């Protein structure tokens, strides 16, 4: 662990976070947008675990545990919402759902 500088992990997670943000803005399939949000959460988890490990306290890892719980709950609700909208509209394309309307 200590042979690798901490910044490497942080840059990797910053990169993944940015890729997630780009994915949310670019992609039009609601499920893929949601997967990009999961990627953002995971990059935050990587940051938390990195800091937790280098600080030598387990609070960060406890936090990751809770983030995973929340991600599971969000996945259940989010996919239920997507199924509900698919039943009515037969599409999960955000453009047809007009998401960024003024």
């Amino acid at each position: 662990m200590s042979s690798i500088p901490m910044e490497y992990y942080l840059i990797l997670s910053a990169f993944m976070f940015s890729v997630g943000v780009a994915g949310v803005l670019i992609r039009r399939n609601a499920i893929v947008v949601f997967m990009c949000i999961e990627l953002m959460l995971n990059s935050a988890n990587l940051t938390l675990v990195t800091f937790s490990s280098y600080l030598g306290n387990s609070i960060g890892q406890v936090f990751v545990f809770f983030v995973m719980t929340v991600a599971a709950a969000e996945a259940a609700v989010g996919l239920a919402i997507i199924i509900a909208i698919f039943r009515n509209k037969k599409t999960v394309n955000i453009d047809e759902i007009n998401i960024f309307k003024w």
Partner: protein
Amino acid sequence: MNIQIILFIVLASVAAVSSVVMITRKNAVISAVFLVLNFFALAGLYLLLNAQFIAVVQIIVYAGAIMVLFLFVLMLLNTETEHKLFVDKRAIKFFSILVSAFVFVQVAYLIFFGHPSRTLTPDEAASVKAGTIQAIGQQLYTNYIIPFEIAGFLLLAATIGALVLAKKKFE
């Protein structure tokens, strides 16, 4: 070069490349599979960081449960309009990439500028201890007992919510 650095390079490049591949594939199922790959690489990185418990949970919960749910819904809905999933308008695409590049450059610059590792003295023994199930469990059931209870209510609410939204015949 010791084995840790080699492992880090391999896992980090798998994570980075799979995340980029994930957002650029037009087929949603392929995106999901690459996201699973990304999660596996992250689990490896967690092991390198001495976070054994989180690494295992990452595979069991994230890659195992959550992503299977995603794939299941993707297969269930079987969306036909996959060729249109990308933004057609160039302006939006350009803007999105610009925004995320800006975020990345800013964060990366500040991380190098802020020197987080210079103020920390990494301690291998403390780090190994922090990642054990014992340490995490001890925190979870003493200091963090209230958030733990709230997590129970969160899951209850999510279950009820998913039921309300997706059950076929509700009345």
